[in-house]
């Protein structure tokens, strides 16, 4: 059970920062900074 909760928590962190970073870089990188 502990492992499952830990896995969901790790997934939450990955999902949150993954989406945030991906969208941010998608907006910024094509212009070399914006």
């Amino acid at each position, binding site marked *: 059970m502990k*492992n*499952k909760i*830990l*896995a*969901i*928590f*790790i*997934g*939450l*962190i*990955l*999902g*949150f*920062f*993954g*989406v*945030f970073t991906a*969208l*941010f870089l998608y*907006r*910024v*990188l*094509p*212009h*070399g*900074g*914006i």
Partner: protein
Amino acid sequence: MPSIKLLLKSVIAFTVLTFPFILLGIGLGSYPGYMAYEYVWKDARFCTSCHVHDYASIGFEGSSHKDRTTCHDCHHQRLRDYIREPFVLILENTKFPKDLKHTPNIPDQLCQACHLSSARDRSTITGPLTQKEVDEVPKIDHTKLHAVHLAKTTDRPSPSEIPLVEGMDNPHPQNHKLEKFRKIDCMDCHGGPTNRAHQLTATDTACLRCHAVHNNIVSEVGCRGCHSSDFIRIIDHQE
């Protein structure tokens, strides 16, 4: 080394065994990640939580750009500056206005993205306007006096090169000249010390940088009293 291998094996085993739960977590975390991006990128409240600039906020509230643009539409910076920014804020403790040396330099293409009929790049616009609405923004190259100025050159330095302290006393010094002529850009009339804090309307002092021919009349009635209509009236091509 064996301990690193063991750790690696444990991580792999953990990942394989709990993969569906990791996926569930990613799914649950994605939406808050998306909302955080929207807040950081499109909501001025994120910027103003650190950038306390009362006059600029008041100026923006009363400007035609309010509700049509976001902070990021005009305030661009390099990728590395996003990383540097929090460190500067914490470690260098910058103070306004003593650490603000020059007025901001707003590259032409920022204004042109919305205000020119043949804008090279509109991909930087993140504001709430749709593409169709951006198309409907009046294009300055279709107005008589904007078109005339866009085609001209000047030997005056860009307002962003005038030190701010000097600029406040003498917003558009006429004795500063460049060795080479350069194209007139938006900043020449809509930027500079008199356009601080989101006051983007051109002022008569900007005209006087180059047009010092009838100073006496200007001091009485101003430039824009007679000439402003030709800056905003769309040229009728049948004229």
